[in-house]
């Protein structure tokens, strides 16, 4: 069946009420009966929930073949816990047919790629598929199609029971012996642990894993002890150098600065840029540079930001300290400055992924976003964006909050160079749709700016401000004139990954790539 972004979805995936993507607010107004976990009653008092080892915790929680277990990725590339647990389950306990439901997977979890190849892990549900895991899934080694969800789509799926987690293994910077846990105050801090919260409420069993035991009660806590079965202490939950950087630095690449300045000018030209406006923050590429160019406009017009939403770095924290930002709503922290700031500043608040971006609750914060600035691997002439597959067809990225913020915000701006090496970013059709074009408003490249024709209001804003723009088709032609028009990729029939839209409908399918054979 062909869906609303023109993608062919195999019929065999459309069983049990599974639908195809039908537009950005298709599920608005519908009702959902939430799932609930099957939890053990701990009526008899326990002195402590500490276990001798991860294995003991797994046995206590009834780890078994065929189960689904979960992790969160707030420790980012420095996380040790996911790999540690997977090793215990597969190598020590010899379990198999496992499904992993993580918030994201990357090179820190490369060992799981081995388990996929060995057939021990048969299902993956995640946002990110970076590193070897992506390569191995693209090669068709995972027994069932991987399910790719955004940060908002994951809690939605968990609440609706589409993903049922048997055991959630939640890494934490500190915990007491009862399971009150959070991401600050320990040896290796990650700051916000917002990714872990939905798991703690919906998994049948919850294991907290920390390297810093603190006095009871460890309050206020992100993970509440009433949801926790076991607590494990390990030497280290992660590599401090890779969890957070010293300070996330703004780019000094002149091309990126030029694009960032253009983005700031576009933002300032819209009517949403007024006192109290909101902004999605990130740490990638030009995002920090955009904030720094916006600062100028804010001071000139005496405007303060009402709230910043998303991933935090020192730069936005400093803006808040300067009085230019009222509140920070934090899902993850990228550098040590932000982690410290979270622990001390009263208006710097941790939020969970459901509050952040879940489309099926009663109003996530992305719905109140004015601006979001995002990157893209590819964007096509219908403004569909691909952030998951390279133009060689191999899985290598993550939707993250991309689809959620694009759908919720008033003005979604994609900023990217026109070509990367010999790969055209602006293309005729993206390899995979991860954010549908009806959610994407403006494209800023180093060769020009294009506005989605659906937004005639924004076109008028740019014209009024004297900001030149061109058609996205002309940008595509320029890209192809530089690198040559690529041949279409060829695919096998086998679907190796399903890309879900944030509302749970199927947005696209990634198939196994058929490598080009030259005779």
């Amino acid at each position, binding site marked *: 069946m062909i869906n609303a972004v023109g993608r062919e979805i195999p019929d065999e995936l459309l069983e049990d009420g599974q639908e195809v993507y039908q537009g950005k607010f298709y599920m608005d107004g519908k009702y959902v009966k939430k799932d609930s976990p099957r939890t053990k009653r701990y009526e008899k008092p326990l002195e402590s929930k500490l276990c001798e080892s991860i294995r003991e915790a797994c046995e206590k929680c009834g780890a078994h073949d065929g189960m689904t277990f979960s992790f969160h990725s707030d420790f980012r590339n420095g996380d040790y816990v996911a790999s540690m647990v997977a090793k215990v389950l597969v190598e020590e306990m010899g379990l198999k047919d496992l499904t992993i439901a993580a918030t994201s997977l990357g090179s820190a979890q490369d060992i799981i790629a081995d388990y996929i190849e060995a057939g021990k892990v048969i299902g993956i549900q995640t946002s990110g598929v970076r590193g070897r895991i992506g390569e191995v899934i693209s090669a068709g080694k995972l027994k069932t199609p991987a399910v790719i969800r955004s940060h908002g789509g994951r809690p939605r799926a968990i609440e609706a029971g589409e993903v049922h987690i048997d055991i959630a293994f939640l890494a934490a910077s500190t915990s007491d012996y009862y399971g009150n846990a959070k991401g600050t105050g320990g040896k290796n801090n990650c700051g916000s642990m917002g990714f872990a919260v939905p798991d703690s409420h919906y998994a049948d069993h919850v294991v907290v894993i920390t390297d810093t035991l603190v006095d009871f009660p460890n309050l206020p806590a992100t993970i509440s002890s009433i949801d926790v079965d076991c607590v494990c202490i390990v030497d280290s939950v992660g590599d401090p150098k890779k969890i957070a950087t010293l300070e996330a630095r703004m780019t000094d690449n*002149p*091309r990126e600065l*030029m694009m960032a300045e253009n983005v700031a000018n576009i933002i300032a030209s819209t009517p949403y840029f007024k006192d109290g406006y909101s902004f999605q923050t990130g740490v990638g590429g030009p995002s920090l540079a955009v904030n720094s160019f916006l600062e100028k406009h804010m001071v000139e017009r005496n405007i303060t930001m009402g709230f910043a939403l998303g991933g935090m770095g020192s730069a936005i924290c400093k803006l808040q300290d300067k009085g230019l930002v009222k509140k920070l709503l934090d899902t993850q922290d990228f550098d040590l400055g932000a982690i410290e700031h979270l622990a001390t500043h009263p208006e710097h608040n941790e939020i969970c992924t459901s509050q952040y971006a879940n489309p099926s609750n009663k109003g996530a914060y992305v719905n109140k976003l004015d601006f979001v600035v995002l990157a893209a691997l590819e964007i096509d002439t219908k403004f569909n964006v691909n952030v998951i597959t390279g133009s060689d067809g191999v899985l290598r990225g993550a939707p993250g909050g991309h689809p959620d913020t694009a759908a919720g915000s008033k003005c979604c701006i994609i900023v990217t160079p026109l070509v990367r090496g010999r790969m055209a970013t602006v293309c005729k059709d993206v390899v995979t749709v991860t954010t549908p074009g009806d959610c994407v408003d403006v494209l800023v490249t180093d060769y020009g700016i294009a506005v989605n024709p659906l937004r005639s209001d924004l076109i008028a804003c740019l014209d009024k401000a004297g900001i030149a723009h061109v058609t996205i088709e002309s940008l595509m032609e320029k890209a192809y004139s*530089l690198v040559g028009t690529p041949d279409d990729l060829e695919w096998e029939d086998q679907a190796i990954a399903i890309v879900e839209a944030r509302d749970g409908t199927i947005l696209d399918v990634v198939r196994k790539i058929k490598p080009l054979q030259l005779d």
Partner: protein
Amino acid sequence: MISRPKPQKNRLRRTMMFMNAQKPGLIKDAYIYGSDSIILDLEDAVAENQKDAARFSLYHALKNIDYGNTEVIVRINGLDTPHWQEDIRCVVAGGADGIRIAKCESAKDVKLVEEHVLAAEREFGVEEGRTILMAALESPLGIMNAYEIVTASPRMFGCAISGGDFRKSMHVQIVKGGIEMLAARGQMLLAARAAGVQCFDTMFPNIDDMDGFQAEVMQNREMGFDGKSIVSPKQIRFVHETFAPTKKEIAYAEKLIRSFNEQADAGVGVYTVDGKMVDIPFFEDARRILALAKACGVYEENL
């Protein structure tokens, strides 16, 4: 093949950015960075045993990349090497705007290059006289001969000093404030102005030392240079801003021009503006400033 406009001797050259001809991924975006000129290098950036490969890369880079309004100059190898003749053939056939003669020391050097350029223009069907020339002065003798060098050919549009080699031959180190280069810079500027051509300062190699860079650029401006060689796009913005006339200079120039127009109508040639006596050279300079300001994009009026 993208056709290029005819090279102009007198044009904005505030920044001349060195680029490696063998890195097309960077060159193809040169005009985005906004440098006034780029210098594709066949000399120091290319290893001795890769000179032939660099030419093939250069030829195709000249023929296939759209440079927009950015001027394209090629630095050929020195006249004491076995490479410069084939360099000239390649550059002219490829259609570059001009040639930078490295290690230029005498009028004879210029005439030799000019001879081969003309022969190449004839061989490859390029309009005779199209390719313009500049000299890089890298030795004491080159600096001493600056005037004869810049007047040696009608193709000459300017000269530049190349600090690295020059300092070595003078037995000096880089000194804050630039006194070790003062005499050389001064002499070169005198020669260029006397000959009516442009003059460019040497590149500042330490990209991370922004303070040192900015100090040197401001001194360049005060001494009267037309532009500067740069090695990174990060250096472009500050040079462009510094070399553009200031609002104050523009306002004063406008005042002079307006008053000149009034007084000329009344038949007066010398008078005072703001308490200072002004005559014809002032007005010519005022016009030059407004033209420069317009070219730099900081002046929109039409005086």
